[in-house]
């Protein structure tokens, strides 16, 4: 009796295929690992693609210096458990070098990651970066290829993307450029949670419901931390929240939730009425095309 293949089996097999194309075609790739749930899935997929061998690439994290400590601790522990090399480059160092200049000391460092990322690409000569972006996240992402070519400045040109047919992925670029590879392009947020549940993957604790001081800003919650204090006149409440996505503290909002297990999160995700970015990104609210703008500038 042959077990039928499920939707998750197919997504997994395709993602493994894409990771192996990177290994087969690229000289010097790296996998972006932030400790977030999408990149946690990427690590499991890489294990399935390459074990019993080692990963044919190091892990890379661009640290804004504004990450939740639980996530950073998880990142380091996970890389050590896997026995894989983790490279960390920080926006802090770019600021010290003068390549990143902040308009205000407390501003979001999210978009400045692009500079540090570019510097890391130059330093190590990476020709491919593997990332956990999904097409269901955002409108500009919905138009990106699985293998996306970037020029020397890391820029994405949405009007001039390569044709990408069948399973024939083209990861080759002329010297100086690089490609970004997105193995879980076709996964939805629900697929990611189902995969985490099926594989029993561990996540940073802030993905699960916990009490946290927050203020309400518009339709979003803003976490109150040393970096992001309450503004004048705002009432701080301690609420049960969880993060649907983890990133820079200054621009990632939690959602109200009592879901303390993966099963409870799955139930909430299946019933959700607000998109992942819509519920969590304090920086995407300003302009309809803000993600595309950032991607053109080299953002992941």
């Amino acid at each position, binding site marked *: 009796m042959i077990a039928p293949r499920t939707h998750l089996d197919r997504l997994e097999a395709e993602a493994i295929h894409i990771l192996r194309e990177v290994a087969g075609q690229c000289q010097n790739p790296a996998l972006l690992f932030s400790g977030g749930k999408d990149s946690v899935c990427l690590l499991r997929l890489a294990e*399935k693609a390459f*074990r*019993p061998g080692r990963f044919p690439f190091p892990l890379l994290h661009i640290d804004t210096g504004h990450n939740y400590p639980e996530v950073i601790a998880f990142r380091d522990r996970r890389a050590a458990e896997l026995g894989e090399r983790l490279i960390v480059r920080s926006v802090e160092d770019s600021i010290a070098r003068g390549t990143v200049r902040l308009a205000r000391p407390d501003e979001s460092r999210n978009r400045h990651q692009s500079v540090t990322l570019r510097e890391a690409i130059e330093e190590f000569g990476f020709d491919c970066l593997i990332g956990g972006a999904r097409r269901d996240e955002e409108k500009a992402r*919905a*138009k990106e290829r699985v293998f996306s070519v970037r020029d020397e400045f890391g820029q994405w040109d949405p009007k001039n993307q390569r044709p990408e*047919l069948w399973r024939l992925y083209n990861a080759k670029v*002329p010297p100086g450029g690089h490609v970004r590879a997105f193995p879980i392009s076709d996964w939805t947020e629900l697929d990611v949670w189902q995969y985490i549940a099926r594989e029993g993957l561990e996540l940073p604790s802030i993905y699960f419901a916990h009490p946290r001081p927050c203020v309400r800003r518009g339709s979003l919650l803003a976490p109150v931390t040393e970096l992001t204090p309450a503004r004048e006149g705002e009432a701080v409440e301690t609420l049960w929240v969880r993060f649907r996505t983890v990133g820079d503290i200054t621009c990632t909002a939690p959602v109200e939730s009592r879901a303390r297990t993966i099963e409870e999160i799955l139930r909430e995700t299946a019933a959700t009425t*607000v998109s992942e970015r819509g519920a969590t990104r304090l920086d995407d609210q300003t302009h309809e*095309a803000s993600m595309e703008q950032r991607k053109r500038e080299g953002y992941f």
Partner: protein
Amino acid sequence: MDTVLRFLTCGSVDDGKSTLIGRLLYDSRALLVDTLEGIERTSRRRGATAPDLSLVTDGLIAEREQGITIDVAYRYFRSGARTFIIADAPGHEQYTRNMVTAASTAQLAVLLVDVRQGLTAQTRRHALLADLVGIPALAIAVNKMDLVGFDPAAFEAVVYAFEDFAEASGLRARRHYIPMSALLGDMVVERGEHLPWYLGPTLLEVLERTPVEDGARDKPFRFPVQWVCRPRESTDPLLHDYRGLAGQVAAGTLAVGEEIVVLPSGRRSRVTAIELGGVPRERALAGDSVMIRLADDLDVGRGDLLVRADESAPTLARGVEADLVWLDPAPLAPRRTYLLRHTTREVQARIETIEWNLDVATLERVPAHELAMNDIARVRVKLAQPIAADPYEALRDTGSFLLLDPVTWDTVAAGMIRGAQ
């Protein structure tokens, strides 16, 4: 059993594709509150009274500025036990390469026709491209019925015109014709009230009923090797001689103990293990990504193809006859050597002859000496090293190839193998 249908939406510019997708997502309740609010905000700002559903898919800044779709947008929704992946392809001729991208993996194409315009050159081009890449089903969405007073004669005129065209061009795809108004929602997800004379299925019903089995498991086994796992630096002595061939099964099945042939070398061996992530399994099926270990220490690497010794083998070809879609703004340079990507293999290639170039408007096969962007041609390709090829109709994975520019590494053409020598 959950299934996935990948479908493409295409047609001329202004035939209402974006509105149709918006309608499909809206009526199947796949749009989330914040997306809807964003659309309503933008629609109001532009002075519209109802939400403009075309805003769901028009993602890029240039697309909003020009009011057109430039690149393929992927969208996801579920209905019942089926997951749908929509690839929304642009209508403008200059973006045909993006349409081909979307078509190559689709199991059905929704071809939009504006009932007032009838078949345009672009409708015909998209239908031909869909057929060329072997999409088995076409849903011809005869849209904007609201603008002709929901007149059945107007719908039938399109059906007759399309059937004439299909016969003249030898289209093989199954065809469904659906009159609709994407703007008002008739016959997309809901039947609506305006088309009582139409008794066939709605678009969503067609999508739900389209078979998705490609039969790849029942075909001869094909396994392009992507990468070789040799964990020699491992401290585990058991792994010292480990050699795993990593790849995704393109077709057929393979079990431990079976005999295989490595192509193009022709060397034989026996399968000692099939694994994924170091975990053994008994067999591998079409679609599975696995690692295969062999009894003999053969020289096998990326670009080789494993087949079963007891099944029919592909042709080891030094030349192929193929339908070629030229995708690059720079035309074909006939004397230039390109790099041909077939499965995981790369060989040098030259276009030996252009047998004909298809005139999409007249369906005539015209002689040609050069190929420009969007041309669809029958060519003979000469290869510096052999490839293990199947006809495209038999198996897409081993019947398709790309041509890459050896300087820019860009993908300049896509080919479908019709014959191999």
